[in-house]
């Protein structure tokens, strides 16, 4: 690809992604709000969004609550020929609007997608073997993403089910948090496995209501990503869950993990949205209850364990 690749946001993930793209042999334009040093050669740092017009493909790696505002400013420099791909775990507002939808709503760009799966900043930056999935309805966007980051140590799969990828990846954030919490309470592998399986099942229920395909939840964006988190790829959500489990307050725990974590407020919004749609999401509900301080851990566990058993696949 002769044109440079844009990365919007210079947090840990944005910088790691920029390095991965540079390693694959592309020129990178890394946008940062403040002045920053280039993390590696081949990466040009800028604070001028207009510079990104030169890139056909840009990755959006800013926290979800900033995506709308930033993308709107970025959109002023772009047109229908640009591709935007975000790497977030968030869903926006009470309606749980997906971020690919936000990108389409606030920018003139239509060719958008979401990059997800077991991709963590550290591994991306170092180039250790791994993989991910790009969700986009546009095959040309999938090709561009693959061309920009894939390498012999990074496999990128693709799917048309963008919504599935986005809902799955958001739910993984919540389940990772719950899993960290459960670990700190001394729960064993069996309990964690039940939580993970039933957690993905409720994610899939909610996802299908929002137009996603069930199968996506059992792929890289869903189970694959959750497995990596639970096997200990040093996910901030797991750390946050543990700290909460150890009795730290939410603000303390957030301060200590030091990164922005999407799952905290999201669990509450997911539980509310699911209730409106008549979909059962007991685990998300329990996480929301515990974080909100309405439930003790013991109560949450009891609630989950005393639910009436049903058929596994309905």
């Amino acid at each position, binding site marked *: 690809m002769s*044109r440079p690749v844009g990365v919007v946001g210079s947090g840990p993930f944005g910088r790691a992604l920029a390095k991965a793209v540079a390693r694959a042999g592309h020129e990178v334009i890394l946008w940062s709000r403040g002045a920053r040093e280039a993390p590696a050669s081949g990466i040009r740092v800028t604070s001028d969004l207009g510079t990104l017009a030169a890139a*056909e493909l840009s990755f959006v790696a800013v926290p979800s609550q900033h995506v709308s505002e930033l993308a*709107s400013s970025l*959109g*002023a420099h772009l*047109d*229908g*020929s640009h591709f935007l791909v975000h790497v977030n775990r968030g869903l926006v507002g009470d309606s749980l609007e997906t971020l690919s939808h936000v990108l*389409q*709503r*606030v*920018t*003139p760009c*239509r*060719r958008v997608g979401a990059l997800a799966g077991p991709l963590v900043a550290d591994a991306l930056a170092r180039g250790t073997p791994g993989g991910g999935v790009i969700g986009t*309805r*546009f*095959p*040309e966007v999938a090709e561009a993403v693959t061309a920009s980051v894939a390498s012999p140590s990074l496999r990128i799969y693709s799917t048309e089910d963008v919504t599935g990828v986005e809902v799955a990846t958001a739910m993984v954030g919540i389940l990772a948090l719950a899993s960290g919490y459960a670990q700190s309470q001394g729960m064993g592998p069996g309990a964690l496995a039940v939580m993970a399986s039933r957690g993905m099942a409720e994610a899939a229920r909610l996802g299908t*209501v929002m137009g996603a395909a069930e199968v996506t939840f059992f792929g890289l964006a869903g189970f694959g990503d959750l497995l990596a988190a639970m096997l200990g790829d040093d996910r901030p959500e797991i750390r946050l869950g543990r700290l909460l489990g150890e009795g730290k307050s939410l603000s303390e725990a957030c301060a200590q993990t030091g990164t922005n974590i999407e799952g905290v407020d999201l669990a509450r919004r997911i539980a509310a949205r699911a209730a*409106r*749609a*008549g979909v059962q999401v007991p685990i998300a509900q329990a996480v929301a209850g515990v974080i909100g301080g309405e439930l003790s851990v013991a109560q949450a566990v009891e609630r989950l364990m005393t639910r009436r058993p049903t058929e596994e696949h309905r």
Partner: protein
Amino acid sequence: MRLLPTKPIRLPRLRPYVPSPEDPAIFWFNSERDDIVSEVSRRMVEAHASSRGALEQALNETAFQETQRLRSQRGEEARESLGFWYGLLRRIARMTDEEKRETLQRIADRMAKDVAGNFDPRVYALSEKVVPRLLTAAMNPKGLGRAVLQPHDRIDQLLEVEGHVEKLRRLVRVATLVFVPTHLSNLDSVVLGYSLMRAGLPPVVYGAGKNLFTNPIISFFMHNLGAYRVDRRIRAALYKEALKTYSCVMIERGYHSLFFPGGTRSRSGAIESKLKLGLAGTAVEAFARNQLRGIDRPVLLVPTTINYELVLEGETLIAEHLEEEGKARYIIEDDEFSRLDRWLAFLQQLLGLKSGCIIRFGDPVDPFGNPVDDDGRSLSPRGEQVEAASYVSRSGKPSLDPSRDMAYTRHLGEVLVDRFRRETVLMSTQLVAHALYRRLVRCTPGVDVFGRIRHRGDVSMPRRELVQEIGAARDALLSLERQGRVHMSSILRSEPPDVIVDRALRAFVGYHVRNAALDVGAEVTAEDPTLLLFYQNRVVPFAEEIADEPNMKAAREIARMGGLR
């Protein structure tokens, strides 16, 4: 081989019609017709000529589907066609590539000719004068004399046209418009054709089901006003390609078009939420193809809603919706549309209601879902101009890419669904039906839709309460209307709630065989839950937002029932 048993009736042409330069593209159609047909069949063959397998498969599939279809038909023509297809099936294996190509060319040509319409400016001029007279006369046979003298009065009272008409009048000169209306009744195309005329907008080409061509008078007008024929009985993929290619070529050449993206009439009465995107895709493709040829003419979609106080085929439609098998049956042969007495009863009833039908032309969007300015240029969400061409380009070069265009089409479908809701004009019958149905839901907790159908006339509500609920719901709708999320008929917007209730109850009695609701003194009875369901389904997307606290639970259930969560 004959695909078409009936020949269109055309007026003899004594001297060629010479259109004037300011005439819309359709006035030139007849001189371009042959050219268009051959372009369509050329593209169809080209699409299959790339590989030997594709060519043979297209022939095989078409022959197989056609023999299946024709076997169940009687008559000389069907037999003759059947002979052709059986012969083809036998010969395919022995044919050379060149013969296969020639055969496909012949079939494609026939299909394209079968589809292609006709436009006669004389018929257009005639229908401009005749249609309102005929409609008015049909509605009021006794007042025939007066109707012929002042034909527009009554129709104009019956039909209201609103929305972005001024803007569209400008845009027809610089852009190709594709009207995409909601669809509830077979009257829609007639009503819409007349509304375009009245709004000072040019006629459009549109695909009409072949079943509509069985009535010779309607057939005559349709043929000569640029309708092309869609035979839904033909299942062959090649035929669907013929329809799409035809639509694409027409849009490329600047013919304003119309199609119903719902694919068929909304059986449930609800605003379309799932669209058939095949033809919408041709708008995207046509735009891309023009760009590739250096033609920078905008293609714009005009979301349009047709809103009826009463729906001609209401009873049949909802019955079909509720019947599981009904959903699979595509063409209803025997419904109210084919019965003259039902037409007359319907029109008679509707005429008693001022503005019984409102056509709203929405704000047009480009094929990528962007709004446009008065000159048809695409606008970004920030209101800045954006090059529509950029959507079909990479690094400044336009290209054709069917999978990309499919993704755009899906996005466009989502935008249209949203626009349909926003451009819907709610009518008094729909809101009153909603209040009554909501009461029924409230009184029958835990019962499903089929259980509720059986509660005929079981649930009543005090008229006073109904009036009060309508008032509250209307106030909530006013605020939604201010936010641009829906529209209301002028009657619903400004008449006192008891007048709205009266009007709806009057409408409900008399036309449909069963009464939807009955006024029994101080009480109003939910007489026919099925019909109430049909009319109230239009309100479903707004149900939760217009419910007061005591009705919230029922409203939520209604919202979920509609599959809109």
